[in-house]
């Protein structure tokens, strides 16, 4: 969002910030006074000019819902929590961004990698597909057998969650 851009009122959802602030981790959104500590200390922002945590927070405060939820930049947060730990206002910046990602996901904006992780989890308990050869090699390495996931029980536990229904559809 450039400094001089004029935002049309029709693009603004004035209730959006309250929706975000209602979610665990989003509570302090309105406390942000745009000092920019988050962006200046963000490891990702140093190597990418599209990812700016301060701007994301600002957009959420204004209510630019669609622009945030449709974006690709949202998914670049490394979840290092440096911003959260350093925010002078106690805003859990990384958690606000996680709330926004969760909202984007519920609207169906989900990078493929996360769909794969969830599919593996449901099938095996592990988010990565661990090759059979690696599982067999454990014995030769002197390691005990790898604990197994209980696929049926995992699915039973999480199947009612909205996100699981969206992805499994």
């Amino acid at each position: 969002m450039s400094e001089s851009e004029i935002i049309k009122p029709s693009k603004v959802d004035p209730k959006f910030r309250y929706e975000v602030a209602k979610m665990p981790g989003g509570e302090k959104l309105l406390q942000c006074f745009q000092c920019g500590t988050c962006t200046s200390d963000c490891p990702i922002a140093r190597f990418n000019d599209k990812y700016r945590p301060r701007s994301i927070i600002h957009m959420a405060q204004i209510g630019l819902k669609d622009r945030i939820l449709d974006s690709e930049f949202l998914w670049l947060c490394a979840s290092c929590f440096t911003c959260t730990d350093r925010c002078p206002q106690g805003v859990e910046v990384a958690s606000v961004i996680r709330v926004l990602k969760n909202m984007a996901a519920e609207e169906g904006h989900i990078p493929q990698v996360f769909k794969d992780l969830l599919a593996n989890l449901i099938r095996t308990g592990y988010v990565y597909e661990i090759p059979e050869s690696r599982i067999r090699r454990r014995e030769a390495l002197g390691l005990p057998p790898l604990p197994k996931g209980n696929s049926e029980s995992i699915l039973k536990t999480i199947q009612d969650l909205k996100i699981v229904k969206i992805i499994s559809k």
Partner: protein
Amino acid sequence: MGEAGKYILFLGCTIPYRVSSYEISARKVLQKLSVELVEMPEFNCCGLPLEPLSHELTLTLSARNLAIAEREGLNILTLCPGCAGMLKKTSKTLREDKSLREDVNKRLRESGLEFKGSVSVKHISQLLVEDVGLDRLKKSIIKPLRGLRVAEHSGCHISRPKKYLEFDDPENPRVLKMLIEATGAKCVDYMDETECCGATVAGIDDKISLSLVREKLSHVKSANAVALITMCPSCHLMYDANQIRVERMFKETYNIPVLHYTQLLGLAMGIPPEELGFDDLRVNPSRIVKYAMEIKARV
């Protein structure tokens, strides 16, 4: 809850997927220190990698593991700081928020489980400083690695977010440094020690994550450290397995061996290097291993 010195080991996903060397060396040193490990009877991911999708999903997956440990009557030990952090955060969140706890428990009951909040979770570094203690750790060292200059990378998730984890100081981490110095090695300071490894954006944007790795390696090199020491499987993957990709992408040479702390400790304890998973490292660690082998064991 649980016996002191006996833990249920929560391996996580990354270690069995790609970082066996960490598991091999950790089991060896814990055995030497008489820490008894029990395997998880069944496993699911701690939920951290899925947090971008849904906080509820993550809490549920995490709580499921906490409930399994609770059923077994044992506290949890992890090798991965990400798992430790996620399990700790979930435990704190659910203990404090009754309605969230009820929601999660409703789902857990589907498979006969319940989260009550009685188990504690520790990362191996926390076990080493709190349960074993630096004094006992130092007594287990028979080959002090004097003269070996190494750098540490503690990683973000061992101590951030501070509010939930209350372990070490994320702005000036001390724990891994103390653990390294207990082996007799010198832990050198370098620029931007607390910088993130970028693992969580690998797969979303490799250019960013490899740029972060490059920066770390160049700072470590400037400090004349001969190796980088980690205690997180994801950070280790970034610096070890991806080092060659960084060298190719930026046409630079680093050749900095990246050791799990448990491998460094194992060498100092006099455990034979072939039992510490060195074969699995991508950047050749032989000069560090050789250095340790030439040290005379004290009796």
